[in-house]
């Protein structure tokens, strides 16, 4: 019982920081419809229902995690030719819209 409630508070804590991040950073220019539309490009490869074999799942990523990862591909700090190409043409508005949409997915 006790470990369950600890787990729950950890989960809540994560959830709230995620939400807070989204709110505090105000995600400049974010548009949830645009985010949903752009997400169509992600799910050609990132299976939203499967195990994430070969290509990681991105649903469930925290806003901050998502933005950090995308920026790391954009600056080519993180290796992967496909992701570097995807990130290359995402501007702030696109990244923030995707982040906003992802934060609303369960």
């Amino acid at each position: 019982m006790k470990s369950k409630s600890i787990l729950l508070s950890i989960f809540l804590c994560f959830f709230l920081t995620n939400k807070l991040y989204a709110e505090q950073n105000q995600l400049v220019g974010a548009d949830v419809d645009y985010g949903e539309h752009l997400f169509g490009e992600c799910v050609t490869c990132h299976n939203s229902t499967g195990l994430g074999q070969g290509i990681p799942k991105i649903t469930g990523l925290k806003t901050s995690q998502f933005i950090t990862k995308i920026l790391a591909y954009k600056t080519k700090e993180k290796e992967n030719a496909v992701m570097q190409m995807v990130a290359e043409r995402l501007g702030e508005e696109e990244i923030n819209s995707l982040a906003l949409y992802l934060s609303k997915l369960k």
Partner: protein
Amino acid sequence: MTKMKRRTFVGMAAATTTALSMPSIAFGALPRVVVIGGGAGGATAAKYIAKDSKGAIDVTLVEASKRYYTCFFSNLYLGDFRAYGSIGHNYYGLAVNHGVNMVHEWALSVNNAAKKVNLGSGESISYDKLVISPGIDLKFESVNGYSAEAQSKMPHAWKSGTQVQLLKNQVKGMKKGGTFVMVPPPNPYRCPPGPYERVSMIAHQFKKSNPTAKIVILDPKNKFSKQGLFMEGWQKHYPGMIEWISAETHGGIKNINAATMEFETDLDTFKADAASVVPAQRAGRIAMNAGVNNGDWCPIVPASMQAQADENIYVLGDASIAKSMPKSGFSANSQAKVAANHIRGSLTGSKVFTPRFANTCWSLVATNDGIKVGANYKATDEKIDKTSGFISKTGEDSNLRKATYEESIGWYSGITSDMFS
């Protein structure tokens, strides 16, 4: 998401022709989209229009087959990296999750003026917007001596279905130390690296069970997609087994004799023990019938994928002239999302975003040796233009090649789930 809408029941019963007239009676007020072809382009378009319009558009998908076997990864089936069943998919997800009306019939013709699609059953369905994504037809006559009859002796296996099983049996049954002849198609064709991935997978089979066999590629072209990468891989994994002969070198295939399995060229006459001949291609016949083609393929408006010849028709995937995008499943899926967004905008007034196109094609050269090529594209007034791209490098680290192969498995699971669930 699994909430059953009423339309879903219509969709699931739509294999019978009597159900066909129901949607227009019951939902006459909704704008109607008909999609012909439930492959990479059509299944994606049907899903996204239905999903994103949340019931505001009535979507009917006309697809001849109840099960779609992907051409993508059919080469991996040839190489024993996939089971045949794993590349087959059904349409229940589209019907149940998104309320797409499924009609498993051939679309025979399009009446552009009346905005109707005529089906094999004699019924017709009317549309406000029509999406055509029929894939390719084969121009058997483009290779002298090749024909619809010859396809059982020298399978093209370039459309999904039983041809690829036939080809695999012939590869496995080829006599020890025999010669396999591969004839790739001339440009433009579906899946530019496909013939060379096929050769790799057949070589992989031979290496295991027929190591003295030879593969001769009689190419109608003088260069091919990912050439340096494939050539390097063939040298590394299958030394001495594969000979690629360019058009310049063999001077053109003069004739093929399916009875004697002979390939006559200026250079020599090659005798095969098993073979695959992939002829030139053109847009699926229904596109011609709808009058949206110019010659073999269909010119489109780059920003929307609308046919240049008819603004109420959108042409996706292999059938379209999507310069500079290659004809691939990935491209068709990407184009479908652009068209879906545009169709929804014009029928319901929803936002239409700047079109974004992308493609990546993975190929498998040998166990854990994957390579890839990809690009981003944007719509200009004239064409879909490449803005940036990448390609795997020769001499890459084996861990990277393994990761690339694993990534391709992830992509397959991603795109098929995107199309069908």
